[in-house]
Structures are given as structure tokens and as C-alpha cells.
């Protein structure tokens, strides 16, 4: 893992302004920022960068996570329009189906659940985004079938 983190850091010049870009790439690779990553990123970016600053960035942005996330990340929009269209029921349904609440990850590491605010597709409410795929107008009846495609062996589980 350490080697991989070094490789990611070395894609960018050793300058402070690339801190966020490196963190984003590490997040994309591992689905979270492992504790080992910060000292290695600091080492590459040079003396202008402090571990504290990287930690501040990693905790500030919602796109970065310090906790491991599942292979598939389910984001349910709880913005105003989705909320009116029953996103809370959708959240409860996912909780019942997978046994995890918002911010949590299933023990097998397959799924994690997150609540997000408006994603700008209000006409398609309620919206559920899994990885990069937008599932629109999700219904209680349709939900299990969508989740099944991401379970181990499912067609979207790649």
C-alpha cells in the first residue's frame, strides 16, 4: 500500500498546492485516506506541507474520508425535493436491507451508505447514486433489485 501511495503522490509536482489533488487520488484508490498516507504525502510534497494541514484538509472535505468505505458507495439525496418525494423512507429501506445507517459500512466491506444534499436532479427525485450511477425515481419495490446488482456476483459488482 505504501508503494502505491508514493506512486500516487509522485504523479504531482512537489508543491503545496497539489495537496488536495493527491488526497483525492488516494481517496479514489483506497476509498478512504489510510493513516499511513499522510506522512508519505507530506514526504513527497516537501517542507511547506505539514501533516496537520493534510489532516485538516482530509477532515474538511466531505469527499475525503478517514474511515474505510465499502466497495460500493450508496449516496441517497436528502435534499428538499428528494425529501418531499420520500427519501427518508428510502434511507430506512436501505438500512433495513443492508443493516447499516448513514456513514456506516457493511461488515463485508461491500456497501457504505451516505446522505448527501441536493445533487441537482430534483426532477428525478428521489435519487440514489451508487458509485457513479444515478438511479432515479427509486421506489420501495424497485430498491431490492437495484441493490442486488451490486451484491457479490451481481452484474454491477465489478
Amino acid at each position, binding site marked *: 500500500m505504501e508503494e502505491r501511495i508514493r506512486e500516487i503522490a509522485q504523479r504531482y509536482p512537489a508543491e503545496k498546492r497539489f495537496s488536495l489533488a493527491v488526497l483525492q487520488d488516494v481517496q479514489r484508490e483506497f476509498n478512504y485516506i489510510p*493513516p499511513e498516507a*499522510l506522512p508519505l504525502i507530506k514526504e513527497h510534497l516537501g517542507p511547506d506541507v*505539514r*501533516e*496537520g*494541514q*493534510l*489532516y*485538516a484538509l482530509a*477532515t*474538511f472535505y466531505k469527499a475525503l474520508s*478517514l474511515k474505510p468505505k465499502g466497495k460500493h458507495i450508496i449516496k441517497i439525496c436528502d435534499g428538499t425535493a428528494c425529501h418531499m418525494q420520500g427519501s427518508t423512507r428510502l434511507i430506512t429501506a436501505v438500512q433495513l436491507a443492508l443493516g447499516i445507517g448513514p456513514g456506516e459500512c457493511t461488515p463485508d466491506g461491500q456497501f457504505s451508505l451516505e446522505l448527501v444534499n441536493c445533487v441537482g436532479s430534483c426532477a428525478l427525485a428521489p435519487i440514489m447514486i451508487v458509485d457513479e450511477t444515478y438511479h432515479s425515481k427509486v421506489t420501495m419495490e424497485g430498491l431490492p433489485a437495484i441493490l442486488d446488482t451490486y451484491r457479490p456476483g451481481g452484474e454491477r459488482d465489478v
Partner: protein
Amino acid sequence: MSETVKLVIDGKPCTCEKGDYLLEVAQRNGIRIPRMCYHEGLSGLGACRVCIVEVVEAGRSRVVTSCIYPVLSEIEVFTQNEKIKELRGMVLTLLARLAPNAEGVAKMAAKTGIELPRLAVKEGGDTCILCGRCVSACEALGSGAIAKVNRGVTKEIATPYGEPSSECIGCGSCAFVCPTDSIASERTEESFTIWGREFEMQRCSVCGMPFTTQAAFAFLQAAQAEWEPGAEQQPPLCEECGKKAVARQIANAGKYL
């Protein structure tokens, strides 16, 4: 060549160089704008908002944060008119809500004649106003062990992962600059404890008084070696003995004139 700008602060005509920060310009002219996060040795943070003032430029008025407001054109400034007093009162009230146990906030309110609403002060309640002066001091000194962590209501000042930081040198600058004395530290004859780490004290090579931590002294020596490669390393001297040593050098230098 820098440009000179004329301005009027609370009725007093002043001049400054274009781009100077308003709070500092006022200070130079004997007008002390109340502030909490601004520190002379550090750059303005604009975090506490206590230093807000009203700026009138070409007939248009607005409220700005004077520690990070560069004076660029002719302006008229009001540092304590009714409007500003009211707004500053609001700012201090919010800071007091954030940190009900912060004496610094209560003192600032008393000093600026603002009456804070009565708040329930709990034992062990918050004293940090999250201004970030400590983080700024830590970074300015070249360590960077602490940072503003998380955001919104969960924001706090902490070390990475809340673990004792390997970058901390125990210099105590963070606690020294804190406007509300909210950083816990403990100093004994032998050790200094801060941010979950205990540091051994460095004794003065002349009088034997412990004056800083060994880690902070080693950090300074390393910094000096970087600025002046090959320069002779100074022995550890406390402030008092250091002054005496410099005075002696100056006195000796006089002999050869």
C-alpha cells in the same frame, strides 16, 4: 515605489502605504481596534470578526474586517460608532455562546462596553473560540503540529488523528498566543506537557534554569544551521543569560574601536 493613501479614522486624518492593513494603520495612529484573533507577529486571520469597522468609500458604506482589509483608496473609517458597537456586540455574543467559559471573551466585552447576555457557565465548558491563532503560530514557527480539524459544529483544534504529534516540539507558542487561555499545558521543573506529549526541559548552560524544552531547542539549532550553514552552534542560554552574553559581546566590541 509604493503609493501613499490618505484616510480618516474616527475623524483623525492619517496616511498609509497602499495595501497596508487597516487594523495596523489604525494602531500606528493610536487607535486600537478591539481584536481577538489578530496577533502582531502573525498575519491577519479574519476569524474572530471582533475587529470589524465601518468603511465609507465614495459615499458607500460597508462593514469590513480590519485585520485583513488592505487600504487601497481614500476611505473614511469608523471603529466604534453605534452600528459597529451593535454588530461587535453580536459577534461577541456569538463567541460567548461558542465558548461560554472563555474569560477572554468576557474581558473583551467588558473592555468594549458590551453587555453579554447571561449564559450558563458550566464547569469544564468550552473556552476555545476556534480563531486559529494557535495554528497560525505553530505554522509560522515552522512546526505545524496542530490544525483546525473537521468543520461546522464539530470543528476543533487538534493534532492529526488526535494522537500526540511527532511534529510538536513543545515550544508552547500555541498556548502563549491563545486569546482565551484554552490550550491545556502543564509545566514542572523537569518537564512540559502539551497536546498529550511530555517534553524534557532544557536548562540554561550558565544559570541552570529550565527555559524551554529540549525538543524546541534542538529545533532552533537545526533552523539556525539551515540559515547559516557552518555557523557556530550557540550554547543553550535562557533569556536573561542570553541578553547578558550579547551585552558582553557589544561591550567587548567597543574596546577595539
